């Protein structure tokens, strides 16, 4: 009644959103420029809840941005630079068209450029914020650094990416921050722990690019532009946190070692240093040359009680484990044959304190020769090798990765030359108790616990022994699950034994022996009592709770059942394999 009629779409969500084209017009930018700006500033499209309302009654699919975001973009100084660049391109085109080469030169000299420093600072106000977001930038930089220099993107970008990734790898080596490695069919996944943050990145295999056509290279290049800036600043900070010189310098000692007479043959002088750095075989120079062994500051210990104490103990245990893992390869000397992926292996081995070298012709920066008597492991990836030294192991590269994931030095026998390798398990899978675990994992876990491995060889002679082991493992699992049924089972077993014996026609041992007092095992009694209590508690449960409890228990049991099923399947599979082998041998 009365008043003006309310117009549609003048308030509410319709006014909070803006379509992409309108936003672009508001900023006076072309679409590619607008895209670039949004990526750099971290402004992403938004899906409104009620599209029809926002789209003024139309249901056409559109890209929407929040109006406030676009208003924020209006203040960005880089927008002006984009416009400058547009003008620059226009002028350059004109000069080319008129074949005024001096003008072209002059224009090219004064090409408008911009910096992203302020955007980095704005988007990541603190260092930790930046570190949390580094996964993406690492992936992108590693990816771009493997590109061929064929004009898919600027050569300079590729060089910068290469430099930054080398810096990052050198940092991880020095900080001994690597935790997990996973060789997949796509690429190699690494995980490192830097300042308490778990950082995962993916490194593609070298020379494996077919350039897919449905990827927008311009968008990727824009992301890379931002990420190179970010990674550079993070690298600087990380280097300084370790007292390293930032544009990384080789140690004076190692530098003199790496000096070779025919360096010029390998690389240009300007590129030589980066190549040496990327060889990853030498340590870096520090700002203040510290003593070799830094004294680790012991964390202060406070008196804590109860649960906190347990937690603290757990923490300490974990820390100790980590320390041990960091020194996994210390004292070992590796030599890489030319057919193994050099960079990945060198990086990984150096991350855990090992020494590594390779043939001189493979890459710059090799530190010792094949003939060195102190080499403990030679990594080989071919069926056989002619000249072998007695005092070193010849192993396949997977051993290194598996050792890292298992956090212990695995027995080398499974990884010898020509041996069928055990599967390479993903370290990124975390099994809960009750889940199915592949037998290899079980074995590794047993090794981690410090149990001596029952010497299992894949030979046919000891087949049965192995099977028994596996059976035991399963049984163990079962035991953990239901303790109550334990005694009953054992009794049953006894009975079964007797029955078998009877059926085999052996006379029962009928003998009268003096009666014995049944010894009451107090521990056992206690257990029984506990079990009884539990049963009673279950009985006393409310209907609702009981329902929930049953559900949980059912879920657990189902899991166990599935795990058992898988294990049985596996056993069948293994048996089949063995049978096949046998046949083949015969």
């Amino acid at each position, binding site marked *: 009644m009365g008043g003006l009629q309310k117009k549609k779409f003048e308030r509410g969500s319709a006014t909070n959103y803006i379509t992409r084209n309108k936003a672009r017009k508001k900023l006076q930018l072309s679409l590619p420029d607008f895209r670039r700006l949004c990526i750099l500033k971290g402004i992403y499209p938004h899906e409104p809840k009620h599209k029809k309302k926002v789209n003024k009654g139309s249901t056409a699919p559109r890209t929407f941005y929040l109006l406030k975001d676009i208003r924020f973009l209006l203040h960005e*100084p880089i927008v002006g630079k984009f416009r400058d660049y547009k003008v620059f391109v226009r002028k350059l085109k004109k000069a080319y068209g008129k074949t005024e080469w001096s003008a072209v030169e002059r224009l090219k000299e004064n*090409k408008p*450029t911009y910096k992203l*420093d302020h955007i980095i600072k704005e988007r990541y106000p603190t260092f930790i914020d930046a570190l949390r977001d580094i996964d993406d930038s690492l992936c992108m930089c590693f990816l771009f650094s493997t590109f061929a220099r064929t004009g898919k993107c600027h050569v*300079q970008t590729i060089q910068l990416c290469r430099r930054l990734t080398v810096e990052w790898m050198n940092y991880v080596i020095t900080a001994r921050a690597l935790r997990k490695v996973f*060789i997949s*069919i796509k690429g190699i996944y690494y995980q490192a722990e830097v300042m308490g943050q778990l950082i995962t990145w*993916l490194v593609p295999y070298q020379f494996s690019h077919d350039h897919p056509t449905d990827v927008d290279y311009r968008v990727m290049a824009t992301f890379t532009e931002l990420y190179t800036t970010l990674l550079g600043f993070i690298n600087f900070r990380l280097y300084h946190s370790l007292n390293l010189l930032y544009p990384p310098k080789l140690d004076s000692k190692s530098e003199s070692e790496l000096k070779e007479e025919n360096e010029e043959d390998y690389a240009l002088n300007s590129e030589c240093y980066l190549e040496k750095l990327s060889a990853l075989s030498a340590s870096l120079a520090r700002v203040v040359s510290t003593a070799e062994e830094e004294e680790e500051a012991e964390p202060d210990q406070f008196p804590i009680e109860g649960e906190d104490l347990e937690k603290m103990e757990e923490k300490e245990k974990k820390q100790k484990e980590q320390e041990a893992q960091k020194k996994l390869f210390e004292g070992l000397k590796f030599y890489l044959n030319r057919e193994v992926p050099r960079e990945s292996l060198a990086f990984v081995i150096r991350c855990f304190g090992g020494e590594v070298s390779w043939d001189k012709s493979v890459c710059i920066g090799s530190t010792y020769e094949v003939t060195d008597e102190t080499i403990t492991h030679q990594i080989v990836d071919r069926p056989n090798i002619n000249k072998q030294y007695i005092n070193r192991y010849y192993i396949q590269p997977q051993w290194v990765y598996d050792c890292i994931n298992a956090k212990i030095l695995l027995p080398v026998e499974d990884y010898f030359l020509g041996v069928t390798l055990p599967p390479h398990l993903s370290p990124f899978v975390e099994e809960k108790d009750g889940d199915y675990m592949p037998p290899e994992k079980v074995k590794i876990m047993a090794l981690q616990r410090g149990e001596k491995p029952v010497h299992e060889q894949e030979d046919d002679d000891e087949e049965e022994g192995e099977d028994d082991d596996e059976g035991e493992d399963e049984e163990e699992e079962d035991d953990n699950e239901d303790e109550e049924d334990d005694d009953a089972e054992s009794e049953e077993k006894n009975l079964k034994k007797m029955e078998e014996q009877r059926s085999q026609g052996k006379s029962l041992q009928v003998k009268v022996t003096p009666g014995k007092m049944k010894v009451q095992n107090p521990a056992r009694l206690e257990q029984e009592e506990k079990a009884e209590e539990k049963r009673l508690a279950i009985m006393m449960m409310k209907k609702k709770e009981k329902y929930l409890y049953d559900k949980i228990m059912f879920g657990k049991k189902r899991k166990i059942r599935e795990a058992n099923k898988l294990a049985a399947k596996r056993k069948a599979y293994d048996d089949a394999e063995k049978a096949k082998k046998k046949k083949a041998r015969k």
Partner: protein
Amino acid sequence: MLGREYKSCRWRHHLHSGASALKKNKRVSFFQSFNMAAARRLKRVAASQPGFLHLKSTSDSIDSMSSRRKRVNKNKKKNWNKHSDIIDVEEFLEDVRHQERTTGGLLSEKSDDSLFFVDVGQSKKAEQKESIEGKKRKGKTSRPLRIDLILQHDSLVPPPKDVLAYQQPNAKKLRRIAQKAEQLAAKGVVPRRQKQLPNRRPVDRKAKKAVTEANNNPDREYYDIWGQESKDSADPWYLQQTGKKLVTRPEKLNEKPSVLPAVEVIAPGGSYNPDFFSHQALLQEAHDVEVKKQKEEDKIQRQLAINKEDRATEETTLREQVEGLVEEENEEDTAPNEEEGGVAVGAIALAEKKTERQRKRQKADKIKEQQRLSDRRQTEQRQQLFQLRSIKSSIKQQEKKTKDKQKLRKAKQEAQKGQPRRLGRLKFQAQDLEVQLSDELAGSLRQLKPEGSVLKDRFKSLQKRNLIEPRERAKFKRIHKLKYVEKRAFREIT
């Protein structure tokens, strides 16, 4: 403008002899007006000439030459211009100019030595010839270009001096200042500007270099961006007013548009040397995806296929052929329908007016009905007092229902967070799972054939996390249709 000035001055010039010549020279060369010395000389020369005549005589001479006498009013300047004869004056002046151009001055003023030489004999001439020939030979080697010859200054009149080139603006003042500075220097007083020189800030060359440095320069330098405190040296008010203040970023923008991690690690079956079961699981997953795709495709195929019932059978073709020939029964059926319709239309018109009594009755009924309803409501309310418990329970139930719904909605929203949103015309389409079949698996790292592209994986990951909208490659679209024309040569062949 120059021309007009020249015209208006013409008569005056005649009367004042030399001045006219001077000013006429303006036409020849603008700068000549500045050449005072030359002007003075001209004046003198012109005055001494006997042919310098007055107006009358000139007009007479014209008249005598023409067959008919022409009367001209002499009180009009226009007529002066028109009818005075200045040919002789101009001829004379032209002669003077010619002399000046060719010899550099008037011949009459030249000394005899410069005009004549003594002819001494043949021998010298020969020598001269030789020398000329030598010059010619020399010229052959380094003959000036023709263009240079054309452009050569061929007049001997020296170019006029540019006075302004020798004049210094504010010369007097400057001289005075210089003198004063000298005096002060002698006393040992250093001027203020010189004193401030060492305090000046050095030119920051580096900063300028940084501006031109490209963003992807491989040797670029980094610094501790998080370490240094923001230096707000300038006045904030000034910064704000000049638009140099950076607008603070809203907190909301730092939220990520998706909860998914940046790097999703491939399933354990994607290992280069996988465990049997995890590999099977991955294969199964890939298989399921493929089956789903196949099903959708089949569905579309099915929808596109021709319905079996729509296919022509003998019966339908026969019916089609006889269509319109045998249809008497239907007509009979439709006829009565039409009649009924006619009746119904008539009934609408039959609305009658109500009587007074009917109206009153209706009103009473209405009031009674209202009364009944209100009574009933009241009793119900009274009864509700005794139903308190059930009401309470029902309320509880309702609340519980809403809570459940809320929970459900929240759970749904949470699940949505991990899902890619619809950000544009296209829906997000996950890339194909990277899988190697059992026989493709490599036995060792050396023989491994990488599967899929990391670049595509990254690109899809960005789309999945709602950072960019899914797009497809723009198709090339021809604006104008191609037109094929047979070339002449081609036609000849065929």
